[in-house]
């Protein structure tokens, strides 16, 4: 096995805030004027025009907020304080391809700001990792503790908990998936928001390692980019209200983890033990204690599912976890918080989407016009908001790759609308099924 891995670097795209906000403001002003016109003219449909206008304002605010996101920077004194933090990385492993795990460990040990401890927990895999373990135990980085544990299969939360409990002095815990390589500066950049004592968690940006493998991966990559650089960016700017950290790479204050560990591992939902939604659970806890932000300069490269079956099973699993987590956010976040409204409004919009789909199906003769209009205007809107999705540029992509991704935006929107959203209904209906529906064996190599 080759233990030397070439991991892409990233650069941040220069920001021209005045120009961007001016363009966005003009577009939104035209749209708002159009709404005002509808409100005035469609008096018999005041209910729908009012609700649509309010929804438009909410979406517009989110779009504007996303443009305000900047990577957090620190003063020299602040950096000196961050350098003193003890940082421990948790890498749970379950039936991962050994070469991918090897790349993950390699990326951790080569960080510009190395962690103090890397703890790999093999959660009862059926894969032999002896070569990987032996290599890194003997070729580690001076000053970085490398720990390897194995346990009977108990799930990702239990594997995390083993790392958390084993290092009671960690100031920051970093969670990294076993198929994920961190960019050279990821940990150093990810630590910077912790200079603000209110920040409890930091979400890294997730890019696809295998971004150009096939159409399926490219579509998921586009959707993930848009979600991170629009939705999550807006949530981060809005008082540190990120709802879901990426499980692939996130950072948490040690004090938060220690205070919430029993609740994290012992979570139940209507009497069933909850295994899924580990990343969103920790993010919710972070929101309950302070701020949950995103750092656009802290980047990881993860493997995306390469087959139709794997993609749908992963999405189902996420939607099951997401359904449960919405209960938590609705129940515990203050009603007058951004996080609460970022939960309530999309839930309502999703249910509206389902109901309107039913209305269209019931009256297809009339409704098909609405569907066609929705599709082509939706595509234009998607292109408009997607202008920010390449805020981070990677060394292994050319401008043609970025153009390809941009052209795929409408198709990615259609994939989300006609495949993934309906599948969310299935995930919601079966949220009590907590089995790990991927990784029965090594799935991505």
């Amino acid at each position, binding site marked *: 096995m080759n233990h030397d891995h070439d991991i892409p670097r990233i650069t941040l795209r220069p920001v021209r805030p005045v120009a961007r906000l001016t363009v966005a403001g003009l577009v939104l002003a035209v749209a708002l004027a159009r709404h005002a016109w509808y409100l005035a003219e469609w008096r018999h449909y005041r209910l729908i025009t009012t609700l649509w206008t309010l929804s438009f304002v909410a979406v517009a605010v989110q779009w504007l907020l996303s443009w305000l996101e900047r990577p957090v920077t620190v003063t020299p004194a602040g950096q000196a304080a961050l350098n003193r933090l003890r940082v421990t990385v948790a890498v749970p492993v379950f039936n991962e391809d050994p070469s991918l795990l090897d790349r993950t460990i390699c990326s951790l040990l080569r960080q510009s700001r190395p962690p103090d401890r890397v703890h790999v927990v093999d959660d009862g895999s059926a894969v032999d990792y002896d070569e990987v373990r032996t290599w890194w135990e003997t070729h580690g980085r001076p000053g970085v503790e490398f720990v390897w544990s194995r346990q009977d299969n108990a799930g990702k939360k239990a594997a995390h908990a083993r790392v958390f409990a084993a290092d009671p002095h960690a100031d920051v815990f970093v969670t990294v998936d076993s198929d994920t390589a961190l960019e050279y500066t990821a940990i150093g950049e990810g630590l910077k928001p912790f200079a603000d004592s209110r920040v409890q968690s930091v979400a890294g940006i997730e890019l696809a390692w295998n971004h150009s493998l096939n159409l399926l991966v490219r579509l998921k990559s586009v959707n993930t980019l848009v979600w991170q650089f629009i939705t999550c960016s807006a949530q981060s700017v809005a008082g540190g209200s990120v709802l879901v950290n990426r499980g692939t790479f996130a950072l948490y204050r040690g004090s938060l983890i220690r205070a*919430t560990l029993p609740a994290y591992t012992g979570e139940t939902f209507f009497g069933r033990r909850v295994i899924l939604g580990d990343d969103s659970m920790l993010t919710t806890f972070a929101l309950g204690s302070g701020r949950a932000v995103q750092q656009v300069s802290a980047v990881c490269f993860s493997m995306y599912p390469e087959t139709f079956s794997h993609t749908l099973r992963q999405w189902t699993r996420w939607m099951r976890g997401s359904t449960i987590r919405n209960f938590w956010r609705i129940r515990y976040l203050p009603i007058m918080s951004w996080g609460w409204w970022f939960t309530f409004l999309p839930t309502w919009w999703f249910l509206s*989407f389902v109901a309107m789909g039913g209305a269209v199906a019931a009256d297809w003769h*009339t409704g098909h016009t609405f569907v066609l209009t*929705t599709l082509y205007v939706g595509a234009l809107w998607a292109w408009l908001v997607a202008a920010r999705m390449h805020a981070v540029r990677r060394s292994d992509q050319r401008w043609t790759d970025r153009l390809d991704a941009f052209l795929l935006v409408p198709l990615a929107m259609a994939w989300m609308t006609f495949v993934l959203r309906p599948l969310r209904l299935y995930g919601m209906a079966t949220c009590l099924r907590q089995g790990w529906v991927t990784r029965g064996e090594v799935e991505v190599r």
Partner: protein
Amino acid sequence: MIFIVRDLLPLSLPSPFLSLLGDCFAGTLALTAAAVVSIRLFWRRGKGMYDL
């Protein structure tokens, strides 16, 4: 995202369909609000966020 599409909704749409969409929107809002109230009042009653 799809809610901006109303900007270009064809004015020729027959009105009963538009009313139906309005009912969908308002009905699901009421449904979501009812679910929210129930969760806030009854789910994990008496337990804090970090309580088991």
